[in-house]
């Protein structure tokens, strides 16, 4: 299947981050069109009809989110672009930020018009400081040309955007923690409801949308919902940028229709497994997602297809592992990540992530006693049932799936007191 090249169409064009180049390639036409031809409700309706679902991981229908925001009477309202791309294995937003920043600004301005907001904030992780500079430069160019700021293109609609630099915390990618971080606090998830669409930033209606989600918007406006739905599946329309990493010959970002088969992505687009090694497992949605083994190679990559086999699409971070990978070591690496990133507020996550690391470290060097593998499973299931926010749910998914699919490796470490694959 050829790559549709919609979201990534400007990537690779020289100076694609510059306003004149963006405009030359059709940029800001969608924003101009809605200001001239469409009422805000019509924009919301169009996005609803397109079936676009949030690309940050949760897959919530974007049009619905906007409608909730638009119908709340409180003002001011906020559009927040979530550019805190932190899921291990994800690097799709980085390329859009660095090479197509105006597409993000245009998407945000259209969102602002749709919900009745005049203020946008891009929350970007500190690690993407280069991209933050690109966004800042793009905002200044767009202001000068009247594409953002006061009275956009001479209309009554004003919408300004600023960049907020994060300070290093994975949890701030979760929308309510992100809001707390902008408010100057430690980023800890809020209880829901109320949802941000009603009680968001400073308790005002707020739509938090992922970078890739926003980049879809101008295309939907220009080409319509029918065109958009001609890509992907009925429940997950459109294309998706998959970040493929790990043991493939050609790691990188690939834009493909939602629902593309896992094996097509890995073998046709990402060049197959390195050194002609054997495929072992894949994390289809980053470090938060349960792994899939070779019997699931034909699974369609979309929100529902992956949920049906007990995993998740997440942000589309496909981490491929070949037969040389030690699953205990990989599990420990992921467990350490979540231990570090747990905010510490709720007990099951704070203690659960801590003890999963300690138990895996014992297995790694063969100090474990029998029953400790099951103890990890037990801990994970408890976390799944009781953690306060999505981080706690994510923290055990990969490790439990490694144990579920490769239990003999965990037992082998204990029996042989070293790695049975000799990876360590």
């Amino acid at each position, binding site marked *: 299947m050829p790559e549709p090249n919609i979201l990534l169409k400007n990537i690779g064009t020289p100076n694609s981050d510059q306003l004149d180049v963006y405009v030359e390639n059709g940029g800001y036409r969608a924003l101009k069109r809605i200001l001239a031809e469409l009422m805000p409700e019509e924009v919301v309706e169009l996005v609803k009809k397109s079936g676009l679902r949030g690309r940050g991981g949760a897959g919530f229908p974007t049009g619905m989110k906007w409608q909730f925001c638009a119908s709340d009477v409180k003002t001011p309202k906020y559009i927040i672009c979530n550019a805190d791309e932190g899921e291990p294995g*994800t*690097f799709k937003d980085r390329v859009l930020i660095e090479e197509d920043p105006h597409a993000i600004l245009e998407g945000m301005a259209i969102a602002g018009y749709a919900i009745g907001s005049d203020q946008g904030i891009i929350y970007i992780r500190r690690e993407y400081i280069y991209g933050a500079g690109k966004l800042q430069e793009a905002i200044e160019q767009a202001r000068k040309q009247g594409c953002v700021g006061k009275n956009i293109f001479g209309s009554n609609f004003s919408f300004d955007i600023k960049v*907020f*630099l994060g300070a290093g915390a994975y949890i701030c990618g979760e929308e309510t923690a992100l809001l707390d971080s902008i408010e*100057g606090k430690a980023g800890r998830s809020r209880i829901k409801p109320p949802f941000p669409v009603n009680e968001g930033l*400073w308790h005002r209606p707020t739509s938090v949308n992922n970078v890739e989600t926003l980049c879809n918007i101008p295309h939907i406006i220009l080409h319509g919902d029918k065109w958009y739905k001609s890509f992907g599946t009925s429940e997950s329309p459109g294309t998706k940028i998959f*970040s493929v*990493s790990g043991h493939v010959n050609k*790691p990188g970002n690939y834009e493909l229709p939602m629902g593309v088969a896992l094996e097509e992505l890995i073998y046709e687009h990402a060049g197959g497994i390195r050194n002609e090694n054997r495929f072992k497992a894949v994390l289809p949605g980053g470090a938060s997602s349960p792994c899939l083994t070779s019997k699931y190679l034909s699974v369609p990559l979309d929100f529902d297809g992956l949920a049906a086999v007990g995993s998740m699409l997440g942000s589309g971070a496909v*981490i491929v592992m070949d037969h040389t990978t030690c699953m205990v070591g990989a599990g420990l690496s992921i467990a350490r990540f979540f231990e570090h990133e747990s905010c510490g507020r709720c007990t099951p996550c704070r203690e659960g992530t801590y003890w999963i690391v300690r138990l895996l470290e014992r297995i790694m060097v063969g100090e474990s006693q029998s029953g400790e593998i099951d103890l990890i499973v037990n801990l994970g299931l408890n976390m799944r049932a009781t953690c306060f926010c999505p981080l706690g749910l994510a923290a055990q998914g990969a490790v439990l799936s490694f144990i579920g699919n490769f239990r003999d490796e965990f037992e082998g470490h204990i029996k042989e007191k070293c790695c049975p694959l000799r990876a360590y």
Partner: protein
Amino acid sequence: MQAIDLSKIDKILAGHQAEPGSLIPILQEVQLEYGYLPEEAIDYIADGLKISASKIYGVLTFYAQFHTQPQGKNLLRVCCGTACHVQGGEQILDHIKANLQLNANETTEDGKFTLQEVACLGCCGLAPVLVLNDEVHAKLTNEKIEEIINNAR
């Protein structure tokens, strides 16, 4: 320790006066000025914003990128994300530790290098990676590491 010039903080605070919730940008700018967040600076910010210093510590210790100790001239951040891990990131980290004789979150005695283990840096297609002073170095090997360290030394 040398006393620090706190007057620079006045300017930073004045720049954010009208904004609610500006604590994180203020801490970022102060850290940029001094290279870290000295205790005196934190007390001074607390006075300026009329909040307690403990509240500021609560925020700054939550985020990975604030430091309360001086950092080395070169900040080496080694990615420990999942994609880097499966591409041999751990061996890369061990090699750096041995080369600099340093553990994570330590600074060399000559003040030239600080080593950090960090979560995914978002360049997984180039794994394993490290970031030296905001510059990404990709597809690392032991030879490349030695070159990077020698060039920065």
